[in-house]
């Protein structure tokens, strides 16, 4: 296992940037978010709650450095503040409820798209210029350019509202009690089909495009010609010799795309009323629940960084050349 200290530096700066944004943006914006939030609380505005909000958003008499230190101390103890909309619940509690659903959606969509997209890319490169390639490859590029909102709304209308094949909201049948049994699991999968299919076109498009160009250069290598000359079957050469080596850029791309995947899942969850982080973020932004919005950014940044780190580790295992630190 090898991760360069430079990569770790990048992650540290990214996390620091997200924290500093969270700290400064509310303090820079015109108008006082604090008053808005206290107004939001209404009758629930106990002196303790008001005090907590004031401290977090800088409406206190203290030097800015001291405020920042306090803020960092809060983060270190996983204290992200209290939710304004769901007061007295804390931000951590609100986010914890929805994180699993988003993870489930995103991980399922990525796995599904990774398999489909790389296969499509490998086949397109293998038969470059053929009918499959000329149809699938431009189509993939188009899929990247269509906003997820459009795909989500179309899928909702066609398969949810018109054909009634799939449910139009929620993560499972509200009549069921959550539990570990086949009926419940089936309901969860059934409700996840449309959101996952909505998240997938963008991912499949990205994976297909990257895989195709990477595979085209790999197929030009001598060892591929050697494989053919040995009389190996087309499938063995394509998958074992070509695709296996062409996967590396796809992994790099996956790490860079994670931010966009979260963006897509926010929109998808809102369209399908799916109880994940995206929907929480949306409700929070409508209610101007700033602490939740901030916690969200931190959580998603952490998730993206964690996933990047994971990709770095996997990359090091797959490609031993990286150990010399040249990348």
């Amino acid at each position: 296992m090898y991760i360069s200290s430079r990569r770790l530096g990048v992650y540290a700066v990214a996390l620091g940037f997200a924290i500093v944004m969270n700290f400064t943006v509310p303090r820079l914006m015109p108008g006082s978010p604090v008053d808005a939030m206290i107004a939001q609380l209404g009758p629930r505005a106990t002196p303790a709650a008001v005090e907590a909000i004031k401290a977090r958003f800088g409406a206190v008499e203290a030097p800015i450095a001291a405020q920042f230190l306090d803020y960092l101390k809060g983060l270190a103890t996983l204290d992200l503040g209290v939710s304004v909309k769901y007061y007295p619940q804390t931000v951590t509690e609100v986010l914890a409820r929805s994180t699993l659903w988003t993870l489930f959606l995103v991980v399922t969509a990525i796995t599904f798209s990774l398999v489909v997209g790389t296969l499509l890319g490998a086949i397109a490169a293998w038969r470059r210029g053929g009918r499959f390639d000329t149809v699938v490859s431009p189509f993939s590029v188009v899929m990247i350019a269509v906003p997820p909102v459009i795909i989500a709304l179309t899928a909702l209308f066609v398969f949810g509202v018109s054909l009634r094949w799939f449910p139009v909201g929620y993560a499972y049948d509200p009549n069921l009690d959550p539990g570990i049994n086949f009926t419940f699991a089936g309901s969860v999968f059934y409700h996840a089909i449309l959101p996952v299919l909505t998240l997938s076109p963008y991912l499949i498009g990205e994976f297909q495009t990257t895989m195709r160009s990477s595979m085209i250069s790999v197929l030009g290598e001598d060892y591929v010609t050697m494989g053919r000359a040995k009389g190996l079957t087309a499938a063995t050469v394509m998958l074992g010799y070509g695709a296996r080596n062409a996967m590396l850029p796809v992994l790099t791309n996956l790490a860079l795309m994670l931010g966009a995947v979260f963006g897509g899942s926010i929109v998808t969850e809102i369209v399908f009323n799916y109880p994940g982080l995206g929907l929480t973020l949306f409700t929070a932004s409508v209610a101007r629940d700033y602490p939740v919005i901030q916690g969200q950014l931190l959580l998603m940044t952490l998730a993206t960084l964690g996933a990047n780190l994971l990709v770095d580790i996997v990359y090091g295992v797959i490609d031993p050349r990286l150990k010399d630190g040249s990348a």
Partner: protein
Amino acid sequence: MISGLKILLQQKKAVAGLIIIAALCLMALFAPIIAPGAPSARVGRSHQPPTVEHVFGTTKMGRDVYTQFVWGSRTSLAVGFATGIAITIVGTAIGLVAGYAGGRTDAALDLATNAVLVIPNIPLLILLASFAGTVGPLAIMAIIALTSWPWGARMTRSQTMALRNRDFVIAARMIGEPAWRVLFVELLPNLLPLIGINLVGSIIYAVVAQTTLEYLGFGDPLQVTWGTMLYNAQNSSAIILGAWWDIGAPATGIALIGLGLALVNFTFDEIANPQLRSGPALTRWLRLNRQRNRSLGGA
């Protein structure tokens, strides 16, 4: 430059893409002629399906969807293109300086680039937009441009580094050309194809981000754009009520910009990287290659 345009025009996909984009731009330009009447005027009953009088139907508020669609293209296209240009300028400048300067400047800029690259964009946009309240097109532009330059910066930086030690650049430095001249007169023209790819990609990204933000309700609800049309349609439960025209019109418009730009982008990629090309010459080459493989006894 001219020869590049010629190659572009020889590609069927690029021409199709350019025609789509040109048609949308013409529609935006001539909005007062092809859709006379104010887009926010109430002209009919609520959620009327398409008729001769209202070809795209009406919204929940009884506004004409066709008029809104035509007028909405103005802001959507203008913001998309302007933001795309802004992203490209920032990304190119940072990549160029980092790649050319090297050393500590490069290390710092590269660190910033990679860091902003891994921060999830949409949540960051939402944070900024929600503190700013509902924001006009200009603020949306600024927010998107400030968070999405790293892609272009990365590409430009690596290309600049590859060019930095070419003879013509070293020669220019030796005869005492100032740094700005080396950057803009010697290096920049060589980066044009890359800047083209960056620009088209950035416009695509800007359209996606702008639509997302407006759909989430961060746009100015009084401005008619394709994104706010989606937002209003969503808010009036158009989909559940089966008023597909209300969502369909802006969705088609946005999908069309995406389609047009993607077709151009696909061609740009093929021009910049001949390995990716397909077409008559490639088909011939592939046939020869297959024959060769067959004679080798392979697949």
